[in-house]
């Protein structure tokens, strides 16, 4: 019987300590001390114990009863103390100031990351430039027809100007760095424009230049395709075609299928099915020769694109001016 008592006690102890609430405890209490409870039953059966053990078993059974009763009471009390305060998790939180990067910075950073994977470094250059570095050294002599596409903002006519493209950094880099190098640049450029929703006299360009023995149109194509797929998505169609830029020869252009009509032709793409994304090509031999390079020994490529339209598409902004006039509302 001693064993029976011990086993009942241990089982009860385990049940009491793991009980979750008063109802459960009450059930345990009834199971132990109720009319047909285990302990009640044992107490009834004490008369069956042989006389010489009766006293010892009696003490044990009483102790067990006391222990279990007090444990149940204790446990009940602890439930009382633990009653949690009601709280409302749906109440609004108090926000700290949340800072955000400008959409243009977001896009530039993403592009930089992609080009870093391909071994490009990041460069920067002056916005106040000379005609020589903005045009002359880029195979764009005075009165070149391509200059009429870039009406320039002058500080001192005709020599000091605000750069009309980031290609000015290309000339600076060709002068300063020793090949091999791969660099990308993002920055402000300026042109004389009739300001409207899609043209601003200040805009952003993204430019890349690589100079290294053995570079070819296939490397250029590979670089641009990798970028376009990473940045615009692997599902976009890409068109790599011949185009004209005086700074490069052979020259190329990269178009992406129009995301609005999937290449069928719509008002956004003027029915072309394609959107012009960037201009590129192998650096013109006149430029390389101008910096003292032998074009039989080294070659390079360059590419450039306007950033604002990409930013506007990404952030669903319709007017280029809102990017830079404080109209942007964050969150």
């Amino acid at each position, binding site marked *: 019987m001693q064993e029976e008592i011990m086993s009942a006690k241990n089982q009860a102890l385990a049940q009491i300590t793991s009980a979750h609430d008063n109802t459960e405890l009450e059930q345990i209490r009834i199971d132990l001390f109720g009319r047909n409870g285990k302990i009640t039953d044992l107490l009834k059966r004490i008369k069956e114990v042989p006389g010489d053990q009766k006293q010892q078993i009696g003490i044990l059974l009483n102790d067990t009863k006391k222990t279990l009763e007090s444990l149940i009471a204790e446990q009940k009390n602890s439930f009382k103390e633990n009653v949690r305060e009601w709280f409302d998790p749906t109440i609004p939180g108090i926000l700290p100031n949340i800072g955000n990067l400008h959409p243009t910075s977001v896009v530039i950073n993403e592009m930089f990351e992609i080009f870093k994977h391909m071994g490009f470094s990041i460069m920067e250059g002056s916005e*106040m430039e000379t005609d020589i570095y903005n045009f002359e050294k880029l195979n764009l002599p005075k009165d070149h027809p391509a200059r009429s*596409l870039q009406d320039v903002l002058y500080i001192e006519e005709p020599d000091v100007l605000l750069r009309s493209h980031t290609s000015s950094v290309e000339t600076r880099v060709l002068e300063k760095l020793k090949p091999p190098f791969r660099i990308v640049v993002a920055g402000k450029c300026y042109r004389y424009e009739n300001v409207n929703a899609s043209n601003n006299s200040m805009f952003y360009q993204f430019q890349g230049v690589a100079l290294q023995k053995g570079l070819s*149109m296939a490397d250029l194509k590979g670089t641009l395709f990798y970028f376009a797929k990473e940045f615009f998505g692997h599902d976009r169609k890409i068109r*790599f*075609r011949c185009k004209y830029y005086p700074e490069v020869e052979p020259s190329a252009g990269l178009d992406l299928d129009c995301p609005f009509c999937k290449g069928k032709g719509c008002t956004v793409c003027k*029915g072309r099915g394609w959107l012009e994304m960037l201009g590129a090509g192998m650096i013109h031999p006149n430029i390389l020769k101008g910096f003292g390079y032998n074009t039989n020994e080294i070659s390079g490529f360059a590419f450039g694109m306007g950033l604002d339209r990409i930013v506007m598409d990404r952030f669903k902004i319709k007017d280029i001016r809102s990017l830079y006039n404080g109209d942007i509302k964050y969150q």
Partner: protein
Amino acid sequence: MKIPLNWLKEYVKIPSSESDLTHKLSMVGHMLDKKEVVDGQTIIDLELRGNRADCYSILGIAREISALYNTPVKNPKTLPKLNIVSHISDCNLTVKTPLVKRVMMVVVKDVKIMPSPKWLTDRLKAYGVDPINNIVDLTNYVMIETGEPMHAFDLDKIGKNLEIRLAKNNEVITTFQDIKLTLTSDDLVWAGEDGIYSVAGAIGGRYHSIGDGTKNILVEAAGYDRANIRRTVHRHNLLTDAGIRHEKELDPNLVETAFGRFIYLIKENGWGKVEESVFDYYPKVVKPWKIKVSGQKIKNLGGVEIASTQIKKILKALNFQVVSFKKIFLEVLVPTYRTDVVVEEDVIEEILRIYGYDNIPVKTLSLEIPSVVTPKFIDEELSVKNQMVGLGFNEVISSTFVKEKLLNLNLLLDEGIAGKVELSNPPSPDNKTLRMTLLPNLFEFVEKIINERGVSASLFEVGKIYFKDKGKYIEKRKLGIISWNKDGLVFTKFKGLIDAFFLKNNIRELDFSSVALNAEVDQTFSISIDREIVGYGGKINDIYFCEIDLDAILEKVRPASVTLWPKYPPQIEDHNFVFPKKTKIGEVIKTITTEGPIIKRVDLVDVFKDTYTFRFIYQDSEKTLNDEEVGKVRNKILQKVKEKFGGQIKE
């Protein structure tokens, strides 16, 4: 340029699929801009390459299609041979400048001026030119067909002595559109005894052009110095059909092609008696030029190996005559209309273009990776931006220019005597003056937020400022911080944000001092590190701002570092002080913290009227401090504060 396909079909067989045609043309450099159907006929509008003067013609595009589809060009009927002379009796021409490369003239007598027949007006309308009369229309027709602009004078109005010369300054011409142009000495003109008859290569004059009563005409076509014409065209806004062709490098031999065709059509239609003799001024005859192309370079630049048979075939299709073809290099003669093909690389582009850019492989940049040359400040600029974002500021990018109404704030925040930079050709007064500080634009942005009923504004900009110093143009990179709060922003909160920015860069030893700046700004202060000023700030209305020189702080930025929690407990005590007016609390704290190594930190925890509560934290990293050790230092501090600042302990 608009190409009516019906017209094009006369000279070359075009594929049945129009979209295949326009796709291929786009791929070789003539992008389809628009396609339209007018009166049942398709017109494709191509965005032409600026260096392809030869393509500004139906025949030019026909040649491109011929090369693309390997189909011959059917040249239009022309006069087989012209009777070329150097002088014609009806009119004498003197060319007074080397800017003229070639001139041809012919006299047509007893012309019948009348409206053009339908075939001609239909063609011109499809292209987009209004018909005038048969002669003018025919000159336009030949121009669109061949690419060479032509012009007809009324022979009886121009007199016997013509000259091509540079205009005198302020000479005037009234164009046939009745627009008066005042010319400069850089404008090339056709002139006679009684003034200027036309602006060369651009536009005809009103009084000497042909009209309904014209009986005899002088027709001319010419080749000029491209750059000169371009300047004139842009100076006087003369982007006429002639102007856009002459500003590009036209082939002087095209003049003869156009003449043959024009005379043929006059005769064929019976519109006048063409004089036998055709005047030709052509001092320097242009012949096909030779270019040597290295076979290796084709492969190196193209990134693809093209079979020599294919190279030959492509060159032939483009009318390039291959004069020699060896393994190492080949030599070609370039047709004179291809004025864009000058160097070896131009020929390589031609080969690749027809070979197909689609066939160039997509190669992963597999060459040795060059070393990273990103300047340190670029990475740091990015990290500065991220730190500001982390502090709850929104990044803005503002204009390089300062609006006229904000120019009073556009002063360099520095003692340096520097000049502002202005545009010499500003598009508007608001886009004229370059910013010398980020303040005016940031200020405008915050005002905008206030007007939009915002409750707070925390903005920053990382950007350049521009000024002129000792004759040099200088750009400096700045961090502009601006903050406003509807409930009122106190200086200590704003300063805390600046402190936090510097702490993120592990810079602790900042000094803020009062300085005199722009009179528009209140509470002006400077920020220095190691006695070097790195920024300025102040308050306008309720708006706090500061501008930090990024180049100056770059060298001060220290790499991130950490310490461990000390093992021995600190002793912490609060003291209330009363100070005389105008006491600099920053100086008091600095004095306290320099009193021995165990005073680890002093914080200002409360200010009530003139009472300042400081919390002193004593701690030793090696042992637990006892009261005696702390008491010694405390006494020294209280003594010093009293002596130096007159600060009294208040119990």
